[in-house]
């Protein structure tokens, strides 16, 4: 099944003709035509809410289209549910993995594809098949490991293996690199190329232009429910694609004047943290941020950035041991017995790394979320009650100034796109005019138009003389936004650089823990 003899079936792997889908008054897909040739990697890009996910959900049988036709391998097919899709050879790797955390890899692979009531035979067959796939495609995973023990990158491999085990010929990946480190992403791309070379067809949904340019053969651009272009990747460039996505010219570089740093706002001295499991997460962080300056922390996710943000934000994980010194505008901040509320009062705003888990209550309305964390502010109180009218009025203003779409304060936050959710969080934190803004992964899962907007706001805050600590795993973002870059590796600052005097390669070395010889960062270890 894996490699069909080529000439026998040269029809495109997937052909969509005039697919339309509406949800009430919202036209999510409008007359979509798409042609994906067999044995290619096909990128689909578009802003959040452009209709990419709806289209793929139609292809995977989650939604039925209102009109239009789907052809798989040249034959029309009605995909009524995901089982039909799987039988037609379509495999899907979701952005949020659908794995049973306390099952082993092998058990997850056969889940729903067991050969019979007894598991033994299926497990044996799966083990053999897994071994073959691992060798063939660099898809090594320990078949007996529990999912919860695997890194995110490995979990994703399990998802891919699941699809391949079900003999998928067409693999759809939805934002696969959103959660991966750069090295893991590179590995994923090698796997995808291997699969393509074996004759599999791959659809990659993303909004990262760099990935599109790097790995796809063809690319289709979606905008507001329509397919606005389909081109060969070799014949286009990032700027052209970005314009197609947004429908106007986009600044990929951040336009900012040189920083004019003032007095130090935040000083961190020898900050150490040992988590509840006894693992040393921070091994002596020294950091200083001045007013009117953006300091970017570069680094592969999981090297202590999250812990640093949480400690500064006032909520280190429970059971952690802390040592060191933090001062804000000369005033020492308590390491113990503090909470996020006290930090906000002290003048620290915080856009957390994960807006859906921390930054917003997804079931709350937008206006309720605009007060979140500041709900105890005096202007929002009315005697014993909360002044909901004042909060709502405040939210309406922020929603308007930050161009949150749809501008409906009564909509539940989960019903906004990722970019608009992030705008709600950024509006809330930035408009409080904090002396120090902590901002983690400001543009993760955010579409290009919103990225530009959020970057502008961060720079504006800096120009107003505030200090910004930016943590991002996107090196491009760090390079273009920071006035100074500190690289974190294994709980230490490996080195500091000025963006105009460094290169991605130089930073990459530091991120990998390779200190240049003239640095004595290792000396204390």
């Amino acid at each position: 099944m894996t490699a069909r003899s080529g000439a026998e079936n040269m029809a495109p792997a997937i052909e969509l003709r005039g697919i339309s889908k509406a949800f009430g008054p919202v036209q999510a897909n409008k007359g979509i035509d798409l042609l994906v040739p067999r044995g290619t990697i096909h990128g689909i890009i578009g802003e959040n809410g452009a209709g990419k996910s709806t289209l793929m959900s139609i292809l995977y049988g989650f939604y039925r289209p209102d009109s239009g036709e789907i052809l798989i391998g040249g034959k029309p097919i009605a995909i009524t549910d995901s089982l039909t899709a799987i039988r037609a050879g379509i495999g899907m790797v979701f952005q949020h993995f659908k794995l049973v955390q306390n099952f082993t890899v092998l058990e997850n692979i056969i889940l729903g594809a067991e050969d019979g009531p007894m598991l033994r035979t299926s497990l044996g067959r799966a083990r053999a098949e897994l071994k073959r796939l691992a060798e063939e495609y660099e898809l090594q995973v320990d078949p007996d490991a529990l999912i919860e023990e695997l890194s995110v990158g490995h979990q994703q491999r399990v998802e891919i293996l699941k699809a391949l085990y079900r003999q998928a010929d067409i693999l759809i990946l939805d934002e696969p690199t959103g959660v991966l480190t750069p090295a893991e992403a590179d590995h994923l791309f090698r796997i995808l190329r291997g699969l393509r070379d074996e004759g599999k067809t791959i659809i990659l949904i993303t909004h990262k232009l760099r990935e599109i340019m790097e790995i796809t053969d063809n690319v289709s651009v979606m905008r507001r429910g329509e397919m606005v272009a389909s081109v060969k990747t070799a014949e286009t460039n990032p700027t052209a694609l970005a314009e197609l996505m947004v429908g106007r010219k986009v600044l990929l570089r951040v336009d900012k004047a040189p920083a004019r740093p003032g007095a130090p706002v935040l000083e961190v001295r020898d900050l150490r943290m040992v988590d509840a499991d006894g693992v040393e997460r921070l091994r002596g962080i020294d950091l200083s941020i001045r007013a009117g300056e953006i300091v970017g922390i570069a680094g592969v996710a999981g090297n202590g950035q999250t812990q640093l943000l949480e400690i500064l934000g006032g909520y280190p994980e429970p059971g952690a041991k802390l040592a060191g010194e933090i001062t804000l505008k000369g005033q020492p901040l308590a390491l113990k017995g503090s909470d996020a509320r006290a930090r906000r009062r002290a003048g620290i705003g915080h856009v957390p790394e994960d807006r859906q888990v921390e930054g917003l209550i997804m079931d709350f309305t937008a206006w309720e979320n605009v007060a979140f964390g500041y709900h105890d502010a005096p202007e929002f109180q009315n005697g014993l009650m909360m002044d909901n009218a004042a909060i709502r009025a405040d939210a309406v203003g922020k929603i308007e100034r930050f161009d949150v779409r749809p501008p409906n304060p009564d909509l539940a936050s989960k019903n906004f796109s990722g970019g608009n959710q992030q705008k709600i969080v950024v509006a809330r934190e930035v408009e409080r005019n904090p002396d120090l803004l902590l901002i983690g992964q400001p543009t993760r899962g955010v579409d290009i138009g919103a990225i530009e907007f959020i970057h502008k706001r961060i720079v504006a805050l800096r120009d107003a003389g505030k200090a910004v600590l930016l943590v991002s795993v996107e090196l491009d973002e760090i390079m273009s936004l920071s006035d100074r870059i500190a690289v974190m590796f294994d709980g230490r600052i490996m080195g500091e650089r000025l963006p105009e005097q460094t290169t991605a390669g130089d930073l990459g070395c530091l991120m990998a823990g390779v200190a240049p010889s003239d640095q004595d960062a290792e000396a204390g270890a």
Partner: protein
Amino acid sequence: MERMPKWADVILTPLISLVLAFAISALVILAIGESPVEALKVMVEGALLSSYGWGYTLYYATNFVFTGLAVMVAYHAGLFNIGGEGQAAIGGLGVTLVLLYLPWPHWALALPAAMVGAALFGALWALIPAWLQARRGSHIVITTIMFNFIAAALLNYLLVNVLRPQGSMDPASASFPPATHLPKLSDMALGLGFEWGKNTPANITFFIAIGACLLVWLLIWRTRLGYEIRALGKSEPAAVYAGISPTRIIVIAMLISGALAGLMAINNVMGEAERLIFNAVEGAGFIGIAVALMGRNHPFGVFLAALLFGFLYQGGGELALWTTIPRELIIVIQALVILFTGALDNMVRMPLERFFMAMRKRGGA
């Protein structure tokens, strides 16, 4: 985008669940050779078609409002308080101590004091599970269930060995002094010049229950504490990020929940029995779970659901009295209602959502 109109979500879904539960109940009644139509007639007549029936229905409903609100408040904080039974029982102890050991010249003075006693004891009984959950991570479902048993054992001991008047064979406290007896709704009706619900236990606590619904609504949706309770219930990491202390909110929410459950004792202990008897709660703590579920964790819904269960309780009692349908079957009917409105909610909701989506599509096209 909402999947279906709000009225369908709030009214139609529970209504269909209810019809299904009654349909299956009818089948069960048929299976034992009785007439479901006759049974329904007896229930409706006995519970709703006379002021006597209403007197009992409202009395039971009052109990369920308190326990339903208790479950609801905890639910908004993300906690499943199954301990309403024990908290209400201990609330009864609080009422008893206040009324027996302090002299009261008039019920109007005794009532607020008894309310404080009931709420305080109920809250304290919820405090230990709350603290264990907040600080030690002991699951509140397990601990509150265990505390139901502990409450029963404690009351058993106290009633037999401490509170039982000398010479009495009954494991119950002495009767409360007449000055502390609460006005019945029937007395109040007489005061207004008409006869209503003679010899029924419904009393002034019914109005306190309505007041409690209003206050809980204000608390959850209009106060900062309610905002923080809801935030914690929806996402603990987000609450921590916002500077809300989970420990504090868990403890406070459970104290309020326990206090509400305890307040039920005003109705059954002070208002009806006028002394503390063993097993005074009679399962109302557990019915509260169904009431909160069916009431969609909103005080207005809780109130309506409590009325429904009040009807089932009273109608069920009538059924056992006037027909050969065994008493146990009433429990079956109540269980079916709980099953369909609570546990199987999605069974009705999902087809209904699909139906409304299809309707909307047709309307939009």
